[in-house]
């Protein structure tokens, strides 16, 4: 297993920066995720680690070996591609055995290792099929098998679950966690699905416009967002943002931030923390209901207050219709403040 260290790693596309200088460490055996909207540079970073692309500046270290100049094959890295990238002219057995055969492993060892991985992934019955005869889930597991069979130093995954249907995606998430606990290989996972990132990773980094916005444990990033961008990206349903003068009209808010009294502010509050009632209560604000989303365990109510969107949670039984007025209570101890212009987090210490 390897400890990965990035030292000023940078990548430009022509003069346009794709990845700003990155300095980060991924511990040995850690399941680390890069999450961010598409086009934020996460796949490029993965390609830099794998060696498919060369950086414009900076270095990558696996433990103490400097690897960014090496060819992919020389880094002992395994990768699962978003589109699986299985070799269509080879059977499942040959696909999984491919990395070992390229390294010139003995035939007996190849047979043993392929058998072991096929058993672990439930592919024993499919070994003689060709990729085009398999379902999405099966192909995904073959791609996993091909990566696992060689016990690599680093495991790279480029949104491997994005092509699966919802149910299979949850199953494969558990499978990945199980395999990680079993083999404890340093894993770098890339996805645009923040829910998946939080469920899988021990530590994660939110990427936007080629720059790491925040890095930390999932719960910590969720509870303590470094800026507006992270707050909006992490957590679903997405965080409520109130801007402009309306912020100060919220009951109990003015007192919270004396230091920044006159600056333009943005207030963020998680929909899960906002309670919605049928009748008026002390400290609630009235809003016209524009959307109702029952999810079985909750009733999400979307209202319009002072022209801004507000989403809160009501008990499932509450009778509300579109157009009616509901009363939203915003807990003043669960709100976040951001500078309206830079989006930087403002703390009331």
């Amino acid at each position, binding site marked *: 297993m390897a400890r990965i260290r990035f030292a000023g790693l940078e990548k430009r596309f022509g003069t346009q920066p794709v990845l700003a200088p990155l300095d980060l460490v991924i511990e040995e055996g850690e399941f680390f995720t890069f999450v961010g909207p598409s086009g934020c540079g996460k796949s490029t970073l993965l390609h830099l680690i*794998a060696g498919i692309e060369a950086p414009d500046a900076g270095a990558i270290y696996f433990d103490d070996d400097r690897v960014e100049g090496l*060819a*992919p094959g020389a880094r002992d890295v395994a990768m699962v591609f978003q*589109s*699986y*990238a299985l*070799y269509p002219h080879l059977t499942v057995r040959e696909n999984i055995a*491919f990395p070992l055969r*390229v390294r010139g492993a003995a035939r007996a060892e190849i047979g043993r290792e392929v058998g072991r991985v096929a058993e672990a992934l439930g592919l024993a019955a499919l070994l003689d099929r060709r990729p085009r005869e398999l379902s999405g889930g099966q192909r995904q597991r073959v791609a996993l098998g091909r990566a696992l069979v060689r016990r690599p130093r680093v495991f790279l995954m480029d949104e491997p679950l994005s092509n699966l249907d919802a149910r299979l995606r949850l199953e494969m998430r558990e499978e990945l966690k199980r395999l990680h606990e079993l083999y404890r290989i340093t894993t770098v996972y890339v996805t645009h699905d923040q829910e998946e990132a939080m469920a899988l990773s021990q530590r994660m980094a939110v990427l936007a416009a080629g720059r790491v916005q925040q890095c930390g444990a999932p719960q910590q990033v969720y509870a303590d967002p470094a800026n507006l961008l992270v707050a909006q990206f992490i957590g679903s349903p997405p965080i409520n943002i109130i801007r402009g003068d309306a912020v100060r009209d919220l009951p109990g808010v003015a007192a919270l931030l004396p230091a920044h009294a006159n600056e333009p502010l943005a207030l963020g509050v998680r929909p899960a923390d906002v309670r919605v009632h049928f009748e008026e209560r002390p400290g609630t604000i009235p809003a016209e209901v524009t959307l109702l989303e029952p999810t079985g365990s909750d009733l999400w109510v979307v209202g319009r207050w002072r022209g801004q969107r507000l989403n809160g949670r009501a008990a499932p039984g509450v009778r509300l219709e579109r157009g009616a007025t509901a009363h939203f209570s915003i807990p003043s101890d669960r709100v976040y403040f951001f500078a309206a212009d830079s989006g930087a987090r403002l703390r009331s210490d």
Partner: protein
Amino acid sequence: MRPVLRAAGLALVITWCLAPFLWQVITSVRPAAELMSLPPLIPTRLTAEHYAAIFAGHPFLRIIANSALVAACTTLLALAVGAPAAFALALLRVRGRAVILAGVLAISMFPPIATVSPLFLALSALGLHDTLAALVITYTTFSLPLAVWLLTNFFAALPRELYAAARVDGCTAFGAFARVALPLAAPGLLAAGLLTFIFAWNEFLFALTFTATEAARTIPVGIALFPGLHEVPYGEIAAAAVTVTLPVVALACVFQRRIVEGLTAGAVKG
């Protein structure tokens, strides 16, 4: 209605391609007295005299061997040189890729009749006069542009992730080329190989100029040796044409069957 339409279409195409050649076959088995006289469309009796004649009067077997050798060597050489070049142009980052492709194409734009004299000077200076090697070198060079252009398209059509996957799995660039790109470009290889083979099999101008004796003479020149000053043995030419064409077609059928439909299917999802 559609299957009927397609069947009719295919039948029409088959007759359109086959009819002229069938007429050639009929001419080749038509007795000498009835040659070129048309009241009997189908000859009154079939004869193999022309087939016997082409092997008796001329060292035709040796000429066929020469052509087979030249065509096979040219095809292998053209693919061995063309495929890696096409692979590099398609998958590896090559500065000035378009300029190289345009340059390769420009070479094949010159009519051979203009390049045959200087080429003759060069080859005889190298002492390659009247050798099969001279033909192989020339044919490989002049069939490279088509091979490179065609294969570049086939390698470019391969999903890029496959190349990346092979590299990550430990292959060098050449390993990825040999183990992944090459097998997947089989339809392109077959097309390029076959066209190169047929070009070398049928080429006349260079063959006439560079060869002198049976040691290096190829089929087209051999057939051109059939007629006398004025007299043209139509039967023998027809027989020779049939004899030299069928093996090439048989070769094509054999290789075509080995190419599996939609090779890249299942490689990449979505």
